[in-house]
């Protein structure tokens, strides 16, 4: 097991955002976490990457308890994240944004190799190399956010709503690239409102409702589950 979350609770002030959720991600999997707005998906991601302190429970990554490890050190251990809203550094060029992903790495050869790999995945980014991140379109920014997370050379890639605000064609493209990244050996945990795409691409999935996991199963099982269909896939 690459990632294991045990009984995680998290508070925003006095409001409990997560009510003891448990989930796991095996090495090599794509796991989707679906749920409505405010269900706690982004909160779960921020807890895993260390941006939000947890109230109780455990986060075990790659065999180590990282619950109390600082966010910047979790990156070094192999948790890479493309955050919600993309988090592109607007005043930095595309190239600089990608180099930020390699901030704590020292292996020049490996960095150059990964940069080539990212440009290979997203040829668009190569064309925009010298352009400021803030001037990119939404789709390009999403590519940059995913590419930048890949520059941390993650064992586990966390993607928070990669399809948000994108045109249908671009959504298709982003998900194809996620599958490719996974096939090249990176484990992916994906948070999505676009349940259809996410579940059809994922090996397994979890359904999150108001801070609790209410269902889990393989991507196909969830995709055909009547309750999931009604609530998240827009079919009765």
């Amino acid at each position, binding site marked *: 097991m690459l990632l294991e979350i045990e009984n995680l609770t998290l508070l925003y002030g006095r409001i409990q955002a997560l009510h003891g959720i448990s989930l796991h991600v095996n090495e090599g999997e794509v796991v989707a976490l679906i749920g409505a707005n405010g269900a706690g998906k982004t909160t779960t991601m921020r807890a895993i990457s260390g941006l939000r302190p947890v109230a109780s429970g455990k986060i075990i990554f790659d065999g180590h308890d990282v619950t109390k490890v600082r966010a910047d050190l979790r*990156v070094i251990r192999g948790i*890479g994240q493309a955050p919600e809203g993309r988090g592109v*550094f607007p*005043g930095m060029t595309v190239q600089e944004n990608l180099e*930020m992903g390699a901030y704590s790495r020292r292996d020049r050869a490996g960095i150059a190799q990964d940069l080539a790999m990212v440009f290979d995945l997203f040829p668009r980014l190569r064309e925009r190399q010298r352009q400021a991140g803030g001037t990119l379109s939404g789709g390009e920014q999403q590519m940059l956010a995913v590419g*930048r*997370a890949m520059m941390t050379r993650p064992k586990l890639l966390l993607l928070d709503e990669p399809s948000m605000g994108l045109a249908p064609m671009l959504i298709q493209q982003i998900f194809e690239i996620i599958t490719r990244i996974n096939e090249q050996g990176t484990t992916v945990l994906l948070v999505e409102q676009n349940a259809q795409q996410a579940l059809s691409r994922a090996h397994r999935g979890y359904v999150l409702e108001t801070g609790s996991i209410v269902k889990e199963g393989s991507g196909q099982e969830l995709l055909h589950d009547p309750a999931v269909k009604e609530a998240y896939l827009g079919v009765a």
Partner: protein
Amino acid sequence: MDFDGLVRDFPDLTTTGLEQGAIYALVALGYTLVYGVLRLINFAHSEVFMIGTVAALGTWQVMGYNQNSSVNGIGIILLLLLAGLAAAVVASTLTAVAVERVAYRPLRRRNAPPLAFLITAIGASFVLFEAVGLFSDDLGIGGQRTPFGMVDVMQSETLVSIGGWDITNTQLLVILSAIGMLVALDLFINRSRLGRGIRAVAQDPDTAALMGVNKDRVILLVFVLGGIMAGAAALLWNVTYAFSRFDVGFLIGLKAFSAAVLGGIGNLRGALVGGLLLGVVENYASGLFGGEWKDFTGFVVLIVLLMFRPTGLLGESLGRARA
């Protein structure tokens, strides 16, 4: 109003203005760097500057030079400048780091509201200058709460004279060093890996953490950089005025802060533009209305300018400041 005086003294007022403005600019960088990363005005930065002036003065005294000494020979001048610079930079940097550790970091750990930071900043400022004022006698740097005299390291003499425009050796030293320091800092922020880390935290602290940037280390770094700049400013101040006081930081700090806001707080180049502009405007005003109107006019111009450009002249954040 003395238009003739302004016209007659125009060249001199300009160079004096640029000289003072250069010192404002160096101090302003400290405000702007810390603001860019923490969105916090480090009001104790004025004392970071003051401690620098006192450290250089103390070092010169230990070396056997006080207000009654005269300095002869380029070798001795260089030695005193370098020793003073080293002392001022070290003392200012240590002060800046101490302020961050004692006054800010504990509050950050507890997620204190911004007002709490403002109060500890002002508190740290008072504690530092009052301490220097109270102990200056015991330390032998001057009477208790009085002005401190010191050796005039570099006798001011005209170096270049173009038409009626005289530029002295100290003016040239001050203006060129300030510009040199700013260029070096600008290169560091825009080209180096650590500089990129600073810009990342300034633009988006959470995402910076997701890139593996240690925010505490970046914060420490901006305080160190601000301290180095303030230390350099302190040496240049000593060379220009051969005088300091326990509360010398108050007005300089206020003007440097204003210069930073004038140029666009969070913007490094804005600090230079704001500093030089404030220095020059003040001096023109003193030529026009008389010396006692200097501060009055400087701040009136600040207020009027901010009415029309609330974000300052170059108004961008540290993170976005790129050529």
